[in-house]
């Protein structure tokens, strides 16, 4: 039997299992991915914040150290009079002894250092040939108009200047810390500004520091000033040219502007920044460097951050895929182990349907339902085979019985006189009889024979039951009757004698009704005895048919010492006696109605002048038409005797 792959149970089960498992896997994977992603992002955010904060603190410390230098010098200058040489020595030492400091100036207000001196600003810096001195105030360099001087003066507070490209240092970014010093009032409060002390700081160390921070594999750090200008960045083109705000404007990215605002305003933060500061999606962590008020930013690509999650996810997906393949294999094997026996059973069923019961499924060794089914199936085949064998035997037996029955029927038929006219040489009477058994052999019988030249004996009987036992009982009865008649008994005596013989050893409790009469063919005298049999009909040319009333006796074979009355009639010529068995009056139609004695009487009354054969045939025909196809339930026997000369036509 061919099963299309798509409709195979195995494939269906596999597909269902696969779908279900895939859904479960997918859900679990999605959850695991999103959860681990959240964890990693949280962790990354924490790390990034910590890292940026710690780097920012470190940078701040460096700046704080630098701040102290001019601040101390200011404090010293504010403390009291200081001669020029001491001051110059102090400034020089400040530059000399602090590697971070590129140069330092003490710039005085006009006339503040010395009356009549407008510009006085000694400046020491690390020149090419060591510590170099320069007076920086002049007509062409009016330091009072410079931010580094003007701003702290206006603000009356130290200021970190915006970073700038160093003029002499070959493009090094510098910044300046400018600290004002005052003439202090009596209460120590700043009164009148006297000048500004500066410390120029190269930001080379800052750039190296920021560059040295390895953030992930590809991330980078940068610093923006308090106006958002890039102070350090791995793209040198941005440094001092672009600010985070100009980038936002250039890229039409208002979100970046907001990020920039947050960067110069907030202490620290963590935010996704899209692809502005990086070619792909990236995150930005930032922390303010409170002094000089700049902000450290750390950009790192999202992909790198999520690489771990993605690796984990990839492995999980691969495992899941492997699991699924394994599952498919197992599922297919399992399904196959179930369906293979089923397919074989289906094939076996086909064989059985074609009559081949020699099927062998004994190699399906399974304890489960399939095994059970296979065993049941084999059991069924085995039983079927046995049944067919039995049936064959039974059929043979039945055929044998049938043939025997058929023989028995033949024998029975041969026992009944069936050649008509029965006495072609005698014309003083006419007799006709039929027996239609319900089965092959029947329990009804009739007989007629000449006891001598002038006496005709007629017998009709009905044995209880049907079939072979009835036939046998009938044969015995017939034999006993003939034996009794042979002994010269008259009808009453015959009945008594037969009854006695039958009743003895009648273990099967069978019985027989018998009507027996002896007609004197010369006188028309009719002696008869009725042992429980249906009363025959009698009529002649002058009278209508009527049932022959008593005498009668009990049926034969039950009561051992029963006596039977005998009566005597005299037939006038033309008298017809119609004897029958209960198969006639008790014939059923299809609705269960009886033919009945009334109907019999009615049929016979209306039959008119006919021969006995014709009367019998009419009656048989009426019974048949009454039955309307209903099965014959009992043997039907009719015997008709007409006294007087036979019609000449016969």
């Amino acid at each position, binding site marked *: 039997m061919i099963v299309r792959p798509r409709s195979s149970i195995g494939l269906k089960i596999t597909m269902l299992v696969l779908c279900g498992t895939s859904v479960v896997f997918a859900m679990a994977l999605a959850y695991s991915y999103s959860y681990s992603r959240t964890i990693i992002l949280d962790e990354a955010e924490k790390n990034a914040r910590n890292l940026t904060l710690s780097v920012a603190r470190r940078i701040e410390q460096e700046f704080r150290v630098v701040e102290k230098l001019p601040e101390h010098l200011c404090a010293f200058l504010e403390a009291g009079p200081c001669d020029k040489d001491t001051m110059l020595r102090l400034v020089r030492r400040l530059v000399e002894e602090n590697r971070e400091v590129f140069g330092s100036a003490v710039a005085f207000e006009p006339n503040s250092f010395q009356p009549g001196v407008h510009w006085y600003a000694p400046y020491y810096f690390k020149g090419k040939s060591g510590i170099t001195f320069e007076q920086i105030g002049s007509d062409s360099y009016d330091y009072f108009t410079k*931010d580094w001087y003007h*701003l702290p003066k206006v603000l009356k507070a130290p200021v970190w200047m915006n970073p700038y490209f160093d003029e002499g240092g070959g493009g090094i970014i510098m910044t300046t810390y400018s600290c004002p010093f005052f003439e202090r009032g009596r209460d120590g409060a700043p009164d009148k500004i006297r000048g500004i002390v500066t410390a120029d700081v190269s930001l080379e160390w800052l750039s190296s520091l920021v560059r040295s921070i390895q953030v992930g594999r590809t991330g980078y750090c940068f610093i923006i000033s*308090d106006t958002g200008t890039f102070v350090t960045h791995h793209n040198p083109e941005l440094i001092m040219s672009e600010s985070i*705000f*100009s*980038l936002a404007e*250039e890229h039409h990215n208002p979100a970046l502007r907001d990020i920039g*605002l947050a960067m110069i305003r907030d202490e620290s933060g963590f935010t996704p920044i899209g692809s502005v500061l990086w070619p792909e999606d990236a995150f930005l962590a930032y922390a303010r460097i409170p002094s000089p008020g700049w902000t450290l930013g750390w950009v790192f690509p999202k992909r790198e951050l999520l690489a771990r999650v993605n690796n984990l996810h990839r492995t999980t997906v691969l495992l899941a895929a492997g699991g699924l393949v394994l599952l498919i294999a197992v599922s297919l094997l399992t399904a196959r182990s179930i369906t293979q026996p089923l397919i074989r059973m289906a094939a076996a069923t086909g064989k059985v349907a074609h009559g081949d019961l020699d099927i062998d499924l004994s190699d399906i060794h399974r304890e489960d339902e399939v095994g059970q089914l296979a065993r049941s199936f084999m059991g069924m085949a085995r039983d079927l085979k046995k049944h067919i064998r039995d049936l064959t035997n039974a059929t043979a037996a039945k055929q044998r019985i049938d043939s025997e029955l058929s023989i028995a029927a033949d024998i029975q038929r041969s026992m009944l006189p069936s050649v008509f006219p029965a006495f072609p040489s005698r014309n003083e009477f006419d007799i006709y009889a039929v027996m239609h058994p319900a089965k092959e052999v029947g329990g009804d019988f009739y007989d007629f024979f000449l006891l001598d030249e002038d006496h005709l004996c007629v017998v009709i009987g009905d044995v209880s039951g049907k079939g072979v036992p009835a036939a046998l009982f009938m044969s015995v009865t017939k034999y006993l009757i003939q034996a009794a008649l042979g002994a010269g008994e008259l009808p009453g005596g015959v009945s008594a004698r037969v009854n006695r013989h039958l009743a003895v050893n009648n273990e099967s409790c069978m019985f027989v009704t018998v009507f027996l009469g002896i007609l004197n063919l010369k006188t028309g005298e009719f002696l008869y005895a009725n042992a429980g049999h249906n009363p025959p009909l009698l009529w002649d040319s002058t009278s209508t048919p009527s049932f022959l009333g008593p005498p009668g006796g009990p049926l034969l074979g039950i009561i051992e010492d029963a006596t039977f009355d005998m009566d005597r009639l005299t037939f006038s010529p033309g008298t017809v006696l119609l004897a029958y068995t209960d198969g006639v009056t008790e014939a059923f139609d299809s609705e269960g109605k009886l033919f009945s004695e009334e109907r019999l009487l009615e049929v016979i009354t209306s039959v008119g002048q006919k021969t006995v054969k014709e009367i019998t045939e009419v009656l048989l025909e009426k019974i048949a038409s009454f039955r309307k196809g209903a099965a014959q339930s009992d043997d039907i026997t009719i015997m008709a005797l007409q006294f007087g000369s036979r019609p000449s036509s016969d």
Partner: protein
Amino acid sequence: MKADPSLITKALRRHINETVIVVLFLVFLQTVSAVQAETVLKKASFAPQWLPQAQFAGYMVALEKGFYREVGLDLTLMVGGPGKPPFVLLESGEATFCTDWLSNGIEKRASGHRVVNLAQVVQRSALMLVAKKKSGIEHPQDLNGKNVGLWAGQFYLQPMAFFRKYDIKVNIIPNYSSVSIFLKGGVDAMSAMWYNEYHTILNSGLSADDLSLFFFSRLGLNFPEDGIYCLEETFRADPGLCHGFVRASLKGWLYAFNNQEEAIRIVMKHAEAAHTGTNKAHQRWMLARMKDLIIPDEDKSSLGKLEPADYALVADILKDFRLIDAIPQFEDFYRGTR
């Protein structure tokens, strides 16, 4: 207009000089080939009043696109900046042409310098006061008693006239260049150029919403700014040369307005050569504002023209402030298209 002076250093100047040499060399090469190709080009030099930026985009573009050569000029574009007053360069002969504010031009003319205005390029004043709303400044009167950072010189004029007009007493803090003093809280308001410092402030972390703006051009004090000047002798000697320079410059401006990205590239080239530390976003803003100032209300009919009324307004205020004794004749002063 202005930039952080800390950028202008010796090294920078050396760079500038190198650039000038390179430019001169290139110009020389061009000249040689031009001489071979056509008639001899007249040499001229032009001194813009400030550092290379989109404020001078028209001239840079005109040079780059060869518009000066078209009018027979072999032009040298000088690098302006602090410490290089254009009229000084004009009188010393270093520059044939220069740009400067109208107020400066009138003052020079009134004080006996024989300078003439060839074209009034910037028609509208870009000078403004930018104030912090956080300092409680929303209206002119709110400036009373506030620290206001003002640039010196001509930049003083409009603010002072404005304060007088609105009867405002402010505490003036001189500002020499940068916006740091404003950003760091040294002043509550400061003078700024719309095309430059205002945008710098916006790109330093302050938003337009944080700021109150007072445009002098809208307060009855519209002083036309950058105009093209030369010495009267130069004009007398060769009016064609002067008109040619103006024509090519205005053509440069129109080209720059119509081809902004190309103009920005040209400007950035000059700015980077001068290490001004600027960026494209800033120059793009500046060029867009220059268009608003040079062709106000999209009206090209008055391109480069000096209106007598504008002249009168500026001259009157100069006289009021006693910066000039007498107002020079408009016809003597202005030699451009009418």
